[in-house]
């Protein structure tokens, strides 16, 4: 009997995390730790690739402790590896590898547990993607949280990271609590914790208030992680202060895993018990609001990492809108977008990491025109700006294209223009920053220069050496851009994801595979259409236009002066909403939670 691979993506990093923690005190350990952790991530990458390959020929179900269902009831914990789960696990491992490459040999990791925590974070993401058990999902959700809080507060010499970690920890714990309440309700109704079992139990039964509340409570927890308005406040506080490798992982995959969890529990557990129309409305409006607010807030920032964090909020909203359409082809587009966005956003965070490495600052105003020597980084930064907007052939273009096509065919014609605006703005602010940092274009801009968070001086996170940017920092940057292009340019990925999304959306098939052990019968799918180029080019042009708007000196043109005055009030209001105070965040959280729960219960 061949050894099953499914548990090893979790076990390998967990084991190495323990080993590395024991090695923390040996002398001259820097290279050993770097080498061992990178080797582990490489092993996980290979394992995930093999799992992905296997999952296409049939969903892999692995029962821990050989506790296969007893009298049809699952008493154990199962890993259920279908293509989407394996792909997200693979992408998480890839981004972790990029993080380790970036921190190679230079990262200030003296006497700390950086490598241990990164490996634990990797293991938790693997487990979260692969598991088919609700409580196990919660365990990995919390493990992910605990490691992420510690990584956020990594730079204890600054007070920003510590307060950011605190806000992050409190908000996510509240989210975790909601998940636990959801688990409680679901366990009370169905008596099981396995996703497939709960779904099979609810199938064909009338939903009712309890089931609806269970879905909303579970979603609330995961939407906190997914930074959906009004639960998004913690994200900019945390992502803007975390060390670069952690930011890459947070913005590239962790936030999106929250959305993935919503999609997973919806399709497997609730899709045949609840009326989809009100839920679609609920999630779609939350997603659209998030996309818009995130984009506008990104415009108002001068702190580069905070600006990128708000852009993550915006893109997370777009992805939730894609999931909220509750349609396999929209789901395929969302997944493709997730990969494209994660790679581009990761690359952008690596760029800011390089800027921070050279100048100990991430402030757009302070750094204006100072980054001219960083030619390669500057070019890639601006390229990532248009890529973020969705220029062909980046993955963002392909994903958004597929998403827009299916939104149009489902009768949501207003989504493509919304996406155009949001990606135009989020791409445009990156171009604005790139222009002013690397090419000295434009002058103090009237929206962001008054921002209270500047990032003028940041504690260095790496040992600096004389000379240019270390090659090991540029390598992940290049690799991320290559993956971002590959995600869009390869039609194979699109068709594989279409199959993966169809299987994720097939709740009945999933349940049958897990509970009855039958091989998954994949329906033959037509080759999906490639998305058109027009919308992508339009979004990239919009981004250039947004950036160009900010390069005009505001006092030179009369209408701009009026605009500036008119905007002062709304801008101040938006800024005061993001107060950085955890009490405010909790109040907003409960308000959102109350509205969503009440709406879901009344509409079912």
């Amino acid at each position: 009997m061949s050894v099953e691979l499914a548990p090893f993506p979790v076990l390998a990093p967990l084991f190495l995390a323990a080993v590395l923690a024991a090695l923390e005190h040996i002398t001259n350990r820097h290279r050993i730790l770097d080498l061992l952790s990178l080797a582990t991530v490489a092993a996980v990458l290979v394992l995930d690739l093999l799992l992905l390959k296997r999952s296409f020929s049939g969903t892999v179900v692995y029962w821990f402790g050989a506790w296969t269902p007893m009298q049809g009831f699952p008493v154990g914990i199962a890993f259920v590896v279908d293509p989407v789960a394996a792909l997200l696990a693979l992408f998480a491992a890839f981004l972790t590898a990029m993080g380790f490459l970036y921190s190679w040999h230079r990262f200030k990791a003296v006497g700390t547990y950086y490598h241990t925590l990164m490996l634990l974070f990797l293991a938790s993401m693997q487990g979260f993607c692969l598991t088919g058990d609700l409580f196990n999902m919660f365990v990995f959700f919390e493990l992910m949280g605990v490691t992420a809080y510690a990584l956020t507060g990594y730079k204890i010499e600054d007070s920003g990271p510590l307060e950011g970690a605190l806000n992050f920890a409190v908000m996510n714990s509240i989210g975790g609590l909601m998940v636990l309440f959801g688990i409680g309700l679901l366990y009370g109704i169905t008596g099981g914790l396995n996703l497939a079992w709960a779904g099979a139990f609810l199938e064909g039964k009338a939903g009712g208030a309890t089931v609806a509340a269970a879905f909303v409570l579970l979603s609330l927890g995961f939407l906190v992680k997914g930074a959906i308005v009004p639960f998004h406040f913690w994200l900019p506080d945390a992502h803007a202060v975390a060390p670069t490798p952690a930011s890459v992982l947070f913005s590239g995959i962790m936030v999106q895993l929250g959305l993935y969890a919503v999609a997973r529990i919806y399709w497997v557990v609730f899709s045949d018990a609840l009326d989809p129309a009100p839920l679609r409305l609920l999630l779609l409006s939350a997603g659209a609001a998030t996309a818009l607010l995130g984009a506008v807030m990104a415009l108002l920032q001068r702190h580069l990492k905070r600006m990128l964090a708000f852009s993550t909020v915006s893109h997370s909203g777009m992805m939730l809108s894609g999931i909220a359409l509750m349609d396999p082809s929209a789901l395929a587009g969302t997944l493709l977008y997730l990969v494209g966005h994660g790679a581009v956003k990761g690359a952008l965070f690596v760029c800011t990491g390089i800027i921070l490495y050279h100048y100990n600052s991430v402030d757009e105003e302070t750094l204006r025109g100072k980054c001219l020597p960083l030619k390669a980084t500057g070019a890639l930064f601006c390229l990532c700006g248009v890529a973020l907007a969705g220029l062909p052939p980046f993955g963002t273009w392909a994903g958004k294209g597929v998403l827009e096509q299916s939104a149009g065919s489902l009768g949501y014609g207003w989504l493509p223009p919304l996406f155009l605006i949001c990606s135009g703005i989020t791409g445009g602010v990156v171009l604005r920053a790139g222009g002013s940092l690397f090419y000295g274009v434009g002058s103090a801009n009237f929206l962001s220069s008054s921002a209270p968070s500047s990032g003028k001086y940041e504690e260095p996170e790496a040992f600096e050496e004389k000379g240019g940017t270390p090659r090991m920092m540029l390598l992940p940057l290049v690799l991320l851009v290559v993956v971002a292009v590959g995600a869009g340019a390869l039609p194979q990925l699109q068709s594989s994801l279409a199959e993966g999304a169809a299987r994720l959306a097939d709740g009945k098939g999933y349940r049958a595979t897990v509970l009855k052990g039958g091989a998954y019968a994949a329906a033959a799918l037509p080759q999906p259409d490639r998305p058109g180029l027009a919308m992508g080019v339009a979004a990239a042009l919009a981004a250039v236009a947004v950036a160009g708007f900010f390069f005009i000196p505001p006092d030179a043109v009369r209408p701009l002066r009026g605009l500036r005055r008119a905007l002062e009030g709304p801008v101040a209001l938006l800024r005061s909403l993001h107060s950085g105070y955890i009490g405010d965040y909790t109040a907003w959280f409960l308000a959102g939670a109350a509205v969503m729960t009440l709406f879901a219960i009344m509409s079912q």
Partner: protein
Amino acid sequence: MSERFRIMLYLVSALAFAAALRAAFAGLPDFGAYCGAYGPLVLESMQGMRHAQQGVAAVTFDYRGFDTLGEEFMLFAAVAGALLLLRRQESERFREPKDQAGDRAGIEPAPAVLGLGLLMFPFTLLLGIYVVLHGHLTPGGGFQGGVLLATAFYYVYLSGEYGDLLEVAAGDTVARFEAAGAAGFLLVGTVPLFTGHRYLQNVLPLGNMGEPFSAGTLPLLNCAVGIEVTAAFLLVISAFLRQVLLIRKGKHS
């Protein structure tokens, strides 16, 4: 957001949320009338299949052992995180552990406290070990016993010898024990893989029900957890204590 607006927002939302959840609770089984299939299935099968008599231990370490693995590493992560966050800042300096002046309350422990501490140490130690070893038979187990064991060491602190305790906890030994405990749990789970079984499968001889060596891997996993938890709580609490006792503000901060 003003204080008053925040509280009003909170109270209104809390009322609405409570109303919604109250409606949701109405669909739950009555209190005291739960009839889910999971618990009875476990309780029936664990006697015959595992020779186990403690339902919670059987679920924790056997049926849902993988959850417990995640839980162990969560504690492990919390320790790593706390040690990372509570490390000495560059602007701070260590002071002599024996230095009693300054901000520690400065009171020598009373003889009664000292005596009680010394008396309680072996007692709590034994209790902790008992709770760990009988985790699969009686209430308790690796986690509860582990915390008790860690508490035992803090009686030493109570009797005034905190310098020695912190020295021990700061060294590698406790950290290595912690890593060994966590890795030990993981490795016990991998043993069945070599004989073609599943991860965390309970393949050890099952023994007679009710005896210390019964229920297969349960005692072994309990011990691993016990070691991990003892070391983890020692490390976390000593990291906090070190902040109070040993670390001082530097001159330039």
